């Protein structure tokens, strides 16, 4: 690589880094304004239905919620810049600690369900493409359509009734008893992962099928076949390898989406993950948690995007050479 291209690369990456910081600044302002300008009052939620208006006003004062918005924003921003996301009003613990605790079930759920989606989606997509138009393709396509249109809460409740209550194979909800070992935790994650994995596999099937069909009609595949290569080698070695790029993109996107929390599934299965946390924080107007969680989720997205940009630069020479 020439010095020139390293310079271009550096400039590109610096530009992306600047963009990343700009996005995060914008997100912090938006998140703060959205939570504060939305109606609702954390103190009214905290004190309960029988609290008087004076009690609520006094509590707002205690938590500094009666200060002007810009003062509150600057205070919060100052904390964030020092790496302190503040203290949860309801949970009485640091927001960073809450986020860290909640990230674990969400991360495992994301990994398991995306893994399962891949294990179901890729082989089914390949079969569907190879036997295009046959009965098996039609079966797989119908199932994929069904999976793509089924709401996750319904599938979740169905799975709970059949596999947890009916068959008794899985626990209905939660993340295991206090002090549960990792095997128990995984047992609790299996049913939600099964639901999410199955539903997400629909997308993977369709992408794999489409991608494989594109590749299978390429000239070099015809050449490979005419050379007399066995069909297995043609499909798996020559076609699949090249078809994988778009499939991996979809997988990555699905994974990134789920890191932000599979809100509905986490709610149905009562999993203490990030999605569940954000929903509950919004319902009780726990400002520091909403702000902290959204900011961190946005940061993760931005960082993943940045990482992908770096990878593109690395992989695709056209980007590198501007």
């Amino acid at each position, binding site marked *: 690589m020439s010095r020139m291209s390293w310079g271009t690369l550096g400039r590109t990456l610096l530009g992306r880094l600047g963009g990343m910081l700009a996005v995060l600044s914008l997100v912090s302002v938006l998140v703060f304004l959205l939570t504060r300008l*939305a*109606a*609702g*009052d*954390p103190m*009214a*939620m*905290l*004190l*309960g*239905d*029988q*609290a*008087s*208006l*004076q*009690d*609520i006003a006094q509590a707002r004062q205690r938590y500094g919620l009666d200060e002007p918005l810009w003062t509150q924003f600057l205070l919060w921003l100052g904390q964030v810049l020092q790496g302190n996301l503040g203290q*949860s009003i*309801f*949970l*009485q*613990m640091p927001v960073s600690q*809450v986020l860290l*605790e*909640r990230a674990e079930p969400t991360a495992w759920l994301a990994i398991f369900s995306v893994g399962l989606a891949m294990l179901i989606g890729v082989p089914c997509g390949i079969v569907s493409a190879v036997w295009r138009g046959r009965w098996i393709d039609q079966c797989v396509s119908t199932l994929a359509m069904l999976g793509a249109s089924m709401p996750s809460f319904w599938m979740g*409740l169905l799975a*709970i*009734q059949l596999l*947890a*209550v009916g068959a*008794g194979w899985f*626990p*209905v*909800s*939660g*993340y295991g*008893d*206090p002090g549960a070992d990792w095997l128990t935790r995984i047992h609790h994650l299996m049913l939600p992962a099964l639901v999410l994995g199955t539903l997400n596999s629909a997308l993977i099937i369709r992408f794999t099928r489409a991608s494989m069909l594109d590749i299978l009609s390429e000239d070099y595949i015809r050449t490979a076949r005419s050379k007399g290569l066995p069909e297995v080698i043609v499909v798996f070695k020559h076609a699949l390898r090249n078809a994988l790029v778009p499939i991996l993109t979809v997988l990555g996107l699905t994974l990134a989406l789920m890191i932000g929390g599979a809100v509905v599934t986490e*709610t*149905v*299965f*009562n999993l*203490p993950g990030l999605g*569940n*946390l954000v929903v*509950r924080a919004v*319902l*009780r*107007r726990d400002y520091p948690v909403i702000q902290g969680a959204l900011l961190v989720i946005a940061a993760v997205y931005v960082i993943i995007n940045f990482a992908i940009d770096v990878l593109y630069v690395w992989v695709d020479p056209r980007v590198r050479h501007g």
Partner: protein
Amino acid sequence: MLHLPRRHLVTLLLAALPFATFASPPKGGAANLAMIGEPQSLDPMASTADLVGTIMQHVYETLYTFDSKWNAIPMLADGMPRVSADGLVYSINIRKGVKLHSGRELDAQDVVASLKRWMDMAPRGKSIGKDTVSLEAKGSHSIEWRFKAPSASLLAQLALPSGMAVIMAKESIATPLASFVGTGPYRFKERRPDQFVILSRFDAYSARTEPSNGYGGKREALLDELRFTPVPNANTRVEGALSGQFHFADQLPAEALSRVEKGGAGVVPILTPSYGFPYLVLNTKEGVMANQSLRQAIQIAIGQGEMLTAAYGDKLFFTVEGNHSPQGTPFYSTAGTDQYNKQDAKRAKEMAEKAGYKGEPIRLLTSRNFEFHHTMMQVMAEQLRAAGFKPEMQVVDWATLVQRRGDSKVWDIYMTHSGQFPEPMLSPPQLGDGAPGWWDTPAKAKVLGEFNRQSDPAKRAQLWGAVQQTVYTEVPYINVGKFSSLSARSSRLQGYTPSTWPFFWNTGLAK
């Protein structure tokens, strides 16, 4: 006549016998208890939410508590208070030898410090605090409480597990609380937000010697651990109870009854009639509802029976009655109930015209966080429309409603609900001062003044009729009726006695 399936009747009868006693349940084990959400706080003085009281009543105790007939009976107090002839001085002895979770013995200083904190920060405590002249320890195990005016509801206020007047170790008192040192049969062990609150047995618990009676009498921690798990999704609570994952599931939706009944021998439905009441608050301060004649027209226009049917479906789950306290309770009265459930559109229209109604929009504030609120409001809007009113539904989330109702400029009627409490002054807050709706009239001051000054229970019961009549005349709020609650327990959970704030002492888990 209402025909109930036999099985329902059996369930109802069982639930109607709250606090029935069972053969002594086994000791040991941990119970998984699915609750409706995460407690707002673990400080029972900081929040009036029922969930906070339900959990923390195991950790902290009060001077008085309720027996099975809702009478206030001593808990940490040694006996009933000695009250001076003018009703202004209460002397209360504290039980001796009661151990705090820290191992130290409870004394009068702890009681004084705790009650002062309660009067300082708990919404109900503050109203008692306003009437308090002094509260001090007299010796190591006695307190003296002086008031400006007699307070008939004092003992009920001290006993209520909502915004609780709990007694805590004085050295643990801080805001926010950093440790939870009480005298209850369970001690705080661990809280992991949105996952569980764990309480473990307090082995040195000092129990009363009288037999268990309601929330009072002998309390025994049979279970090693209580695990309160927040499960906000009602369907998940139902499925968890059916699968046996939860030993108790609180507040299930009405439509879950048949599933729980068909759920086999492992799960038992618990139906508690007259568990609570939905009510509409009218804005007497500003806007179109400030006109009392118009409020009366609204009262005539609506049909509570239709509203309740739409919200709950099965008649097992609601009672259409205008008396604020259920039949068979001391404050039962039919005063004013001829204005209840009229749904007379024609008369309402005439009344509205006479009151000068010119078709101004009537802003109905409601939330879908409680689906039954929203359903009842929709039915009511139709009833109002039929009577020529112009209702305007404002559907918001609960947090927004709780904030907006504090602003008299933005709503005319809002919907909420409350538990059915033994003492009428405990709820709704509109009977007190300054609550949204801002009901403040000479008639209110007169009837409530008389009611609150009277300490003789029999006379108070009579005076309540006048209060109820005034509510029907001035219409600051409209009682919609009563609803039952459905919960479920595992058949392994033995000794559980259905109650408004579920408690799990004297409750064990069969092997």
